[in-house]
C-alpha cells in the first residue's frame, strides 16, 4: 500500500483545510447505492468512511416468513448481475438440507447456467471498470453487447432475463428448448469475440496499464485477514476456488484451471477476471458436450417441502467470491434462519485500508476493481 508520501507534506506555515468529498449514493462510479465520504487533502485521500444499507431489503427476514419455494424469488435478486449463481447456491443448500436427489441432466443444466451467469457478471465488471478508468463507454457497450446475447439465451430457456427463477428445489423448472445447443454454441463464439475485443482495447493499453499496475497491491495474508475471497484473493497469488477446493454439484468432473495473479494489484484483479471468463466458456462447452438426456425434475417431490431439524452452511463459488448459504430448519415449511455470506460484503469491509493514501481518481478505480454488487452487500 503506498505509504503517505512525506515529501508531499505541506509546510506547517501553510495551514490547509481538509476537504470532505461525498462520493454519494447517486454517483456514476459507485456501482449502485453506496456512499463513501472521502476526507481529501488536495488530491490525496486521508480517510474514507463507507456507508452501506441503502438497498437493505431484509432478505433473511423474508426467507424466514416464506416457504422454501417462494423464497427463490428473493435470492436471485441479491447478486442481480448473476441471477442463476445465487439461485443455484440457495437451491443446492435446500436440497442438501432436505436430502433431495437431483437428476443428472438438471445438474449439468445448472452448472451450464451458472457459468453463463458468471461470464455475464464479469462482462458487467469489464464494462463498468473500463468506464471508471475512463474509456468513456466504449468498454461499457462492448460488455453490454455480450450481456444482451446471454440474456436472450436466458430468456429463451427460462423466460426471464435477469431474474429467471429457473432453478427449483429438486431440479429445474423446464427442460431446455430444442434449438438450445446451436444457440449456445454461437453465443460462446460471440463471447470469445467479445473477450478478444476487451483484450485488445484494455489489457495492452499503456494508459490503462499505467493507471492500474502497482495500484494498491495486496499480500495473501492481508487478503485473508480482510476476508477477501474469489478474484480478489486469487489476484494475490493464492489459487483458492471453492469449485476446486470444496467441490459441489458436478464440478469435479469438469476440468478447468484457476487463473491467479502475482501481486494482487488492480491490474491483476482485472486480469484474473478476464481469464476466468475463458475458463467458464470452457466449462460451458464441456457441459454442452456431456449433457445427458432424461428428466430434469425429481419426480417424487413432496407437494409442500417440509424439512425437519437440521442446519448447514454450503459455500459456493459466486462471481464475486464465496457465496455461502447458511440454512437452519426446525420442521415446518419455512426456514427457521437463513443467512447469506456475501462476498462483496467482506471485500468491501476493507475499503478504508485499501483507499487511504491514494489519489481521488485511484479511490474510484480501486472501488471499481472490488467489483461489488450492492444487492448482495446490503442483503
Amino acid at each position: 500500500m503506498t505509504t503517505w508520501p512525506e515529501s508531499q507534506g505541506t509546510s506547517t506555515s501553510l495551514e490547509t483545510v481538509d476537504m470532505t468529498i461525498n462520493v454519494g449514493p447517486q454517483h456514476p462510479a459507485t456501482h449502485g447505492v453506496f456512499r463513501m465520504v472521502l476526507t481529501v487533502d488536495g488530491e490525496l485521500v486521508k480517510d474514507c468512511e463507507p456507508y452501506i444499507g441503502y438497498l437493505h431489503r431484509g432478505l433473511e427476514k423474508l426467507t424466514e416468513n416464506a416457504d422454501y419455494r417462494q423464497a427463490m424469488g428473493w435470492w436471485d435478486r441479491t447478486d442481480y448481475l448473476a441471477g442463476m449463481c445465487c439461485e443455484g447456491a440457495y437451491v443446492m443448500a435446500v436440497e442438501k438440507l432436505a436430502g433431495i436427489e437431483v437428476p443428472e441432466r438438471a445438474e449439468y443444466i445448472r452448472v451450464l447456467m451458472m457459468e453463463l451467469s458468471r461470464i455475464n457478471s464479469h462482462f458487467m465488471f469489464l464494462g463498468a471498470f473500463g468506464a471508471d478508468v475512463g474509456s468513456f463507454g466504449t468498454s461499457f457497450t462492448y460488455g453490454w453487447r455480450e450481456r444482451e446475447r446471454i440474456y436472450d439465451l436466458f430468456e429463451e430457456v427460462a423466460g426471464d432475463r435477469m431474474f429467471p427463477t429457473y432453478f427449483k428445489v429438486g431440479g429445474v423448472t423446464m427442460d431446455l428448448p430444442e434449438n438450445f445447443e446451436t444457440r449456445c454454441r454461437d453465443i460462446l463464439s460471440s463471447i470469445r469475440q467479445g473477450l478478444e475485443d476487451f483484450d485488445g482495447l484494455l489489457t495492452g493499453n499503456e494508459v490503462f496499464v499505467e493507471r492500474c499496475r502497482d495500484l494498491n497491491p495486496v499480500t495473501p495474508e492481508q487478503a485473508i485477514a480482510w476476508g477477501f475471497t474469489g478474484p480478489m484473493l486469487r489476484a494475490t497469488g493464492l489459487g483458492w476456488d471453492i469449485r476446486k477446493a470444496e467441490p459441489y454439484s458436478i464440478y469435479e468432473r469438469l476440468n478447468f484451471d484457476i487463473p491467479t495473479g502475482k501481486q494482487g494489484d488492480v491490474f491483476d484483479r482485472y486480469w484474473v477476471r478476464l481469464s476466468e471468463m475463458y475458463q467458464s466458456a470452457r466449462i460451458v462447452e464441456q457441459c454442452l458436450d456431456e449433457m445427458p438426456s432424461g428428466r430434469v425434475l425429481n419426480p417424487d417431490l413432496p407437494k409442500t417441502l417440509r424439512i425437519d431439524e437440521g442446519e448447514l452452511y454450503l459455500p459456493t463459488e459466486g462471481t464475486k467470491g464465496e457465496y455461502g448459504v447458511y440454512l437452519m430448519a426446525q420442521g415446518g415449511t419455512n426456514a427457521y434462519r437463513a443467512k447469506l455470506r456475501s462476498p462483496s460484503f467482506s471485500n468491501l469491509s476493507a475499503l478504508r485500508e485499501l483507499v487511504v493514501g491514494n489519489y481521488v481518481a485511484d479511490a474510484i478505480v480501486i472501488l471499481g476493481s472490488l467489483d461489488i454488487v450492492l444487492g448482495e452487500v446490503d442483503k
Partner: protein
Amino acid sequence: MSFGDPFFGISWLDIIIRTLIMVSAMTVVVIYLTYGERKVVARFQMRLGPTRTGPVGLLQGVADALKLVVKEDLRPRNADRWVFEFAPYATFVPVFLVLLTLPFAEDWGIRNLALGMFFVFAVLGLNIVGVLMAGFGSGNKYALLGGIRAAAQMISYEIPLVVALLTVAMLAGTLDLNQIANLQGDRPFILVQPLAFVIFFIAVLSELHRAPFDIPVAESEIVGGYFVEYSGIRWSMFQLAEYAALWGFSIFGSVVFLGGWNFPFGSEVGVGLQLALTLIKSTLMIFLIFWVRATMPRLRMDQLMSFCWKVLIEISFALLLVTGFFLYYNWPQEILALVNWGGALLLLIAIFIRTRRKSKAGDLVGTYKNIEVTE
C-alpha cells in the same frame, strides 16, 4: 477583388460582415460537430447514435441548441456573481479569436495577420482564465477541483505546444500562416517534422480536455469538472467553446502540418477546391481525435503532469535545438526528416518500455504455498 480587401470599401461595415460570417460559420460547424461526434463515437461502439431527430438524426445538433437556449440557466446562491456570469465568455472569446487568423484558402482568412501563429499562441493563454473563473466562481467543491486540474493541465501543456510549433515556424522562416501554407507546395511539414506533429497532437488533446487527458471533465471522479454548476445557455457556451476550439485546432494543424490548401494541387486550382481540401484535412484530424477519444482510458493527474514535464518538454526542446543546428549549418532537410522520424519512434518505444517494467511491489511474501490446482 480577392477576399482580402474590405467589402464595399467601407472598413467598419467590412468588420461587421466578416465577424458575422465567422460567427455563423462557427455555430453551424459546432452544431454539426456535436452531432458528428455522437454518430462517430456511437459507430465505434457498434450502436446507431441519434436517429430520431431529422432524417438520420441530422437535426440533433439543432435540437440540442434549442433545448439549451430554452432551458433555465440558474446560478447557485453561494457562487459569486460576476465571476460566474463572465466565465463562459472568457472561455469562448479566445477560441473565436484563434479562428480569425486561420487561412481557409489562399489568403482567404478573415484577417491575414503577418504574425498569425504568434497571435494564436497569445490568445491561447486566455482560455485558462475562463476555466479558472468557472471553477472558482461556481462555489462547488467538484467545480473547484475541476478548475484547478484544468488550469494546471493547460498551462503545463502549452509549453510543448508552442515549442513544437516554433520548430515548424523556424523551418518555414515566417510566422504568417498563409506563407507557411505556400511553402508546403511540394512536401507537407509533417513529413519533415513528424516528431513536432506528434507533440502538437498530444498537446492539442490536452488543451481541449480530450481523450486521455480529459481529467477536468472526468465524469467518474469529479462529476463534470468546472462547468458542473452551469446549465442552459451558459453551459452551451462552454460546449460551443470546446467544439469551436476542436475545429480551430484541427484547421490550424492541417494548415501548419498537412499543407493546408496548398499541398497536392498547388495554388492555381480554384478557391472552391482549396477550401474543400482544407476542410477534408481538418475533418481527418477531427476523426482522429474522436477515434482516440473512443479508445483511450484517462490518465491520472500526476501521471499527466509528469508525462508533460519529464518527457514532452525535454523532447520538444531537443527538437528545437536540432532544428536550429540544421538551419544554421543548412544541412539538407532530408536528414532533418530522418532525425525526426528517429525521434518519433524513440518516443513511442520509450512509452512502451515504461509500461512493461517489473512491478515495484515485492514478490509474494507469506507462508502460504500456492495450492497447486490438481487438474
